[in-house]
């Protein structure tokens, strides 16, 4: 569990709040820098793109497609937000998987494995939906809670369920990402513990019988975790685009 520990690197204080620069802040900045480097590599803006520009255009095109297919032409306005969410989560997840641990004393930190961070991201997504919905439709936005074709004798129940499912969105967004990252990393940690303790065990049969299968399993789990990193970022971006679609087009 040490990998999730937040350690202050420099003490900072703002209006009585502790805003110390921590390893979490450091990795946020690393993620930001990595995204910037990636994007800057594609900013030559040539008519015939090179490989790097192709990759950057692939990512922006991916988000563009997602927005236009789930929202329509109006989705273009929300591309910067969803792009930022997607890239931040993707890069934060991958940055947490980097083998920085081979440098003594250093270890990778997964920014998205903390509830505060995922909550901020979820609230950004949820808040956008609320603001856009109320701005565009005013009080008519609340018709979102009465789906088409609701029989009149269910009007006391359906809006309640819809409201509940609406309010649960930020929690599901935040918890899904937090749990996926935490659980995957804990599983890897447990397997790594098997490998290390198995190799250090006094009984000689433990190493080949426990450490080796654990190591093989760990390779698979690591690949799976890399997949989860990408899928979680995709799921977050996709759900955000679907929620914004609700706010823009109602239903």
């Amino acid at each position, binding site marked *: 569990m040490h990998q999730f520990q937040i350690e202050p690197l420099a003490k900072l204080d703002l209006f009585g709040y502790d805003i110390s620069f921590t390893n979490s802040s450091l990795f946020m900045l690393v993620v930001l820098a990595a*995204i910037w480097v990636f994007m800057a590599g594609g900013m030559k803006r040539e008519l015939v793109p090179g490989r790097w520009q192709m990759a950057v255009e692939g990512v922006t095109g991916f988000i563009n497609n997602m927005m236009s297919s789930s929202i329509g032409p109006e989705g273009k306005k929300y591309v910067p937000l969803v792009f930022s969410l997607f890239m931040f989560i993707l890069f934060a997840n991958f940055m947490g998987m980097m083998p920085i641990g081979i440098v003594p004393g250093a270890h990778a930190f997964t920014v998205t494995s903390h509830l505060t961070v995922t909550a901020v991201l979820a609230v950004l997504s949820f808040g956008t939906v609320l603001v856009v919905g109320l701005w565009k439709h005013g009080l008519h936005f609340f018709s979102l809670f009465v789906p088409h074709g609701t029989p009149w004798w269910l009007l006391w129940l359906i809006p309640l369920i819809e409201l509940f499912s609406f309010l649960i969105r930020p929690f599901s967004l935040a918890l899904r990402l937090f749990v996926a990252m935490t659980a995957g990393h804990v599983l890897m940690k447990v397997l790594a513990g098997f490998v290390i303790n198995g190799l250090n065990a006094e009984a000689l049969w433990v190493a080949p019988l426990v450490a080796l299968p654990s190591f093989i399993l760990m390779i698979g789990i690591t690949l799976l975790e890399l997949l989860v990193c990408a899928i979680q970022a995709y799921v977050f971006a996709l759900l955000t685009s679907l929620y914004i679609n609700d706010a823009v087009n109602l239903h």
Partner: protein
Amino acid sequence: MPQIAQILETYASQFFWMLLVFGILYFVIGRGMVSKIDANVEARDRKIADDLAAAEKARAEADGLVAGGSDALNAARGEAQAKAAAAKAKGAKDAEARLAKADAEISAKLAAAEADLAKARAKAMAGIENVASEAAVDIVAKVSGAKVSAAQAASAVKAVLS
């Protein structure tokens, strides 16, 4: 779990840094770079579409030209064939006319030559009669000693020859 155990002491710091980092990410990268890259992609797509449209137009134009060209070609070929036929007919007529003229000339020459020949033969015939009658007079004188008048000999030769 440190995420839950530490949440109260670290939330302010995480909140602050998260908003700072995400703000920079959103305004600098999300709004700045992404829109530029999008604009570039759009410009490329538009250029490709324009180029395709221009190529399509050029193809249609070329098709039109080819159709017009083949029309002109057909017309020219027809004209050339008509001209060739006319020239052939004229050539045949000319040749006929010349042939007829040459024929007439040749037959005229032939007639003249025949007339000459007939005259020459008559002359030769007359010469032969004279020579024969003279010879007949001489032969008769030598053989029989009789004197035959030239007129008698001539009529006798004439009777033999004709």
